[in-house]
């Protein structure tokens, strides 16, 4: 350690730089919170302050009055939950095969995972829109869930393959030697070790669906069906003239679930992502 000891002035410089980063990362979010709690009078003032002088919850009340936020949150919840569960249930077995077998299929699937990241969504959404329209699945949460499942699959596979590879193969071989069948081995040896990774992947798929905007904007036409991000844009109004207080309040509320979940799983996500990235 001694060889790399940084000089005192170097240390000060480092802390100064870190401070700049912290301010840059934090200030827009703090401003959002500040705006959300300001009464209309303060928002009209030409000299806004960081701390609301007269904090109020009016903006939150007004936000719920102006837009169907609760229903939108409900729609988001249903879509994100269903997409996350289905994606993980179908991705886990495939990820297992991809991690344990080297076959043409695994190679093709890995290629698809990479390539699918590069396509502009418009090239996929137009045909999907036409197909789902023929099936009468436009403006339906069910149709959106189908899109979300496929959309979150590449990343789910990517993470899960990393998690499977972290499970030592020897454990499975030992179980096989002990006379356990394949299904038995998978369920009683592999699955428990994989469980935390599966949960992390599901939560990540949940957040991406909860946050998703483009597909929801294209596919959901009526306010009763729309998800939270789409409904939030209604606060912006025509020509960008927005009611700042309720806008900030609603935006702040929409963030809380993802921030909470992300705070819990952040370590695992980065781990899974990197495991996948390093191994492929």
């Amino acid at each position: 350690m001694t060889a790399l000891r940084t000089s005192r002035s170097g240390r000060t410089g480092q802390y100064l730089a870190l401070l700049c980063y912290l301010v840059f990362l934090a200030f827009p979010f703090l401003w959002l919170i500040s705006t959300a709690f300001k009464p209309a009078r303060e928002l009209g003032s030409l000299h806004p302050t960081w701390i609301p002088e007269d904090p109020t919850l009016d903006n939150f009340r007004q936000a719920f009055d102006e837009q169907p936020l609760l229903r939108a949150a409900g729609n988001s919840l249903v879509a994100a939950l269903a997409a996350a569960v289905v994606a993980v249930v179908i991705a886990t077995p495939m990820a297992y095969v991809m991690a344990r077998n080297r076959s043409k299929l695994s190679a093709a699937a890995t290629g698809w995972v990479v390539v699918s990241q590069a396509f502009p969504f418009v090239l996929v959404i137009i045909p999907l829109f036409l197909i789902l329209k023929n099936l009468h699945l436009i403006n339906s949460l069910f149709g959106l869930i189908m899109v979300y499942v496929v959309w979150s699959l590449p990343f789910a596979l990517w993470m899960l393959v990393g998690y499977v590879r972290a499970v030592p193969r020897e454990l499975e071989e030992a179980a096989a030697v002990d006379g356990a069948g394949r299904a038995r081995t998978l369920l009683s040896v592999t699955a428990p070790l994989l469980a935390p990774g599966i949960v992390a992947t599901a939560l990540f798929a949940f957040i991406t669906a909860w946050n998703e905007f483009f597909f929801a904007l294209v596919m959901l036409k009526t306010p009763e069906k729309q998800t939270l991000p789409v409904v939030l844009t209604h606060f912006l109004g025509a020509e960008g003239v927005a009611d700042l207080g309720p806008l900030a309040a609603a935006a702040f509320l929409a963030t809380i679930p993802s921030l909470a979940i992300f705070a819990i799983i952040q370590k695992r996500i980065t781990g899974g992502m990197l495991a996948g990235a390093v191994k492929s």
Partner: protein
Amino acid sequence: MTLANAAPRSERQSGRRSPGQPRPGKQLDHGAWFLVLPALIPILVLSVGPLLYGISLAFTDSQAGRTEPTEWIGTLNFQDLVHDTLFWDSFRIGLLWAVGVTVPQFALALGLALLLNQNLRLRWLARALAIIPWAMPEVVVGIMWRLVYNPDAGILNETIRDLGLGDGRDWLSGLATALPAVIVVGIWAGMPQTTVALLAGLQNTPYELHEAAALDGAGAWRRFRTVTWPALRPVALAVTALNFIWNFNSFALVYVLTNGGPGGRTRLPMLFAYEEAFRYGQFGYAAAMGCVMVAVISVMLALHLAGRLKGGDER
């Protein structure tokens, strides 16, 4: 404790003798097919299929609300596209935006990753704060920055006024300031992911190499150039390539911030294609745009990667 400390653990477990590494030459047996099909069918039906269908649409006159059957029109859409100056304007803006976000973001994220790789006291705070841009819906990020940029009630102009630097301006509506303003938001929004990826790359460099270099009298910059950077290069290359593609294809952030305005100055290709398809109903034409976007980006990236990888061999 660092942003990415979960990664090396799994790495260590399987790294030594790679028990998780696929064994060569194995064909899928029936059991494996049974495991693969639940994911494979939706992928083929809802992803690969539509993609091929989308490419084929680019050669048709497919339109919303068209009563007569869709016809093949060959490369007519592409011929029109070549002369569509609005599209090429948006393409140019998309490239400016993608480079404008990716490059500074990489520089900033590298700086932050190097800092977080040090034994500094406020690391936990940086890690906690980094969650915010990462986990937020893009729509909320856009809304949040509109509040920051707001000409009257925004904190940016108020700070400018406080510092006596003038009255500030309407950043998102100014012809000259709109694109830089949205680029700053793009940089902010993608910082955490880039930082985490680079930090993981940094932690893969053996500490002993740093020590050895330091004992040989190499300064911080020398150490960075001779030890850190060579080890980081593959990660850096992958990160910039992916970020570039993602940024070029991005939509929600700019849709919320400016919706392509003022006067099309921030109209990214995806916003243009979206309007063409879902406002004007020109499905075939918009699909052709998508094809051109993919083609150009693929070629550029292939050249970029080929050049960089070759450069790496000469090292």
